[in-house]
């Protein structure tokens, strides 16, 4: 005959888990009588002769239930309870306190000082059995709760490590700062809100003197936003764009991306700015889709926000995104950023704002690009009063310098 698989799991078949009771009483006759009765009921019994050795046994054996005499020298029952409740290791122990004079006021005091239940020394064997069983029920519920909590903590730890590994992957997609083209420098900062973010930026090498660059912001946060960002970033790779769009024109690229990335069923989408710097013609071309975080700081100090009111990607498949061309000169700096930077709130909920960002960058003047980028992030952190941004933050700065040596 084939062996049937166990339905209840291997641990509970055939072997009943024996529960343990700790009896703490300085009076030997009463202690052995109770211990004998509990053994007859099928429990494993540990005996302790006073409060001090009782606490040691509790710590060592972690019994399911402790039955405690009130009157004991040195550490009495209520003091025993108080010590247990103050100890993080022991505080969930189930304690049944025994007393010979069960006045309501005394019972109240015992419960207030940490006992879970009371048992009169004059109680019948039926009552003792019933109270011990009730204590055991509570003990096993608490134990299950502790096991489940531990399991959740363990799983969260695994999830956290997986998120960290995914976050490292996303960061590995980011471009290295430094010289992108002769005369074009880049610096950046990336501060995702949950370790794993929905903001991404990158460069697209179009040629010796021509460079594409973009910054995108996926709506929402966390894993799903990061996956969507990585998928759009894959679409925006050089070879793919040349094959599927056949153009380096920012508007043409966004028009095609808009068709490829419709709204998700939860209404998630991207905002993006895509730019092209041509260092031969000194032209900056760009197109935006619902993205307001981009500005040009002229070498004269003048600020030009590259804001165009238009739909984010996926809102309407028939949208045509237009390219804007502007001339750039040596010393001009282009900043692409996500709204998480200027929408950092302070403790009163007031947003840092585009004006304060502009002032900050102004104040840094001719400092190096890397110093301006890290300085702007530091200033936003100072405004909100803590390191952790509530939304993903990305900032990329690009400077065009004279190459006519």
């Amino acid at each position, binding site marked *: 005959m084939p062996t049937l698989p166990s339905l209840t799991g291997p641990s509970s078949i055939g072997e009943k888990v024996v529960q343990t009771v700790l009896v703490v009483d300085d009076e030997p006759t009463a202690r052995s009588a109770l211990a004998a009765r509990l053994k007859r009921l099928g429990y494993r019994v540990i005996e302790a002769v006073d409060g001090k050795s009782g606490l040691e046994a509790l710590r060592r054996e972690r019994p399911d239930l402790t039955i405690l005499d009130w009157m004991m020298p040195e550490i009495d029952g209520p003091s025993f309870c108080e010590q247990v409740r103050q100890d993080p290791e022991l505080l969930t122990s189930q304690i049944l306190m025994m007393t010979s004079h069960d006045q309501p006021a005394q019972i109240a005091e015992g419960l207030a000082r940490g006992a879970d239940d009371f048992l009169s020394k004059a109680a019948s064997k039926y009552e003792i059995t019933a109270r011990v069983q009730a204590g055991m029920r509570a003990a096993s519920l608490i134990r299950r709760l502790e096991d489940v909590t531990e399991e959740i903590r363990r799983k969260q730890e695994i999830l956290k490590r997986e998120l960290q590994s995914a976050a490292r992957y996303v960061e590995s997609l980011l471009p290295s700062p430094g010289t992108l083209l002769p005369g074009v420098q880049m610096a950046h900062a990336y501060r995702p809100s949950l370790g794993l973010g929905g903001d991404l930026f990158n460069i697209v090498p179009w040629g010796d003197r021509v460079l594409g660059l973009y910054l995108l912001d996926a709506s929402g946060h966390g894993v799903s936003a990061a996956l969507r960002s990585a998928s759009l970033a894959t679409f925006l790779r050089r070879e793919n764009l040349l094959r599927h769009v056949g153009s380096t024109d920012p508007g043409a690229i966004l028009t095609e991306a808009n068709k490829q990335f419709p709204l998700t069923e939860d209404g998630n989408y991207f*905002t993006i700015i895509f730019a092209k710097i041509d260092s031969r013609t000194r032209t900056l071309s760009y197109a935006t889709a619902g993205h307001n975080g981009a500005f040009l700081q002229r070498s004269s100090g003048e600020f030009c926000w590259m804001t165009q009111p*238009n739909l*984010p990607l996926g*809102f309407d498949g028939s949208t045509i995104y237009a390219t804007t061309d502007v001339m750039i000169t040596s010393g001009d700096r282009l900043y692409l950023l996500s709204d998480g930077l200027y929408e950092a709130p302070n403790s009163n909920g007031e947003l840092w704002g585009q004006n304060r960002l502009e002032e900050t960058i102004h104040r840094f003047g001719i400092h190096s690009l890397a110093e301006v980028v890290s300085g702007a992030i530091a200033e936003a952190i100072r405004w909100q009063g803590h390191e952790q941004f509530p939304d993903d933050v990305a900032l990329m700065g690009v400077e065009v310098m004279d190459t006519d040596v």
Partner: protein
Amino acid sequence: MQTKERPVPNGVVLELSGDLTYANREQFKTAVEAIRQKGCRHLILNMAEVRFVDSSGLGLLALVSQNFKLSQGQVSMLKPQSYVREIMSLANIQKLIPVYDNELDALAGHQRAA
């Protein structure tokens, strides 16, 4: 966020109050989807009592507008507050969802379009 629907000739006005954000997305979607499945062709979102719309809220508005379009319907918006109006116009939402300052204009606008 609270929602209350009120039938009007050839449509439904959904009165919204509170914030239209990530935290309230299910509530908003459920209310709107119930109206769409009843066969409503013109949904008018009254935004007068909406203080804030975040990026998730913006996506939901676009999604609702697309879903109504799929069932030959239309979504209009009534009286957004200035902050919400600014967010809408930066994302050019009025291209998908016409914005009106009173209900009669919204109803007339839909009839013209139909």
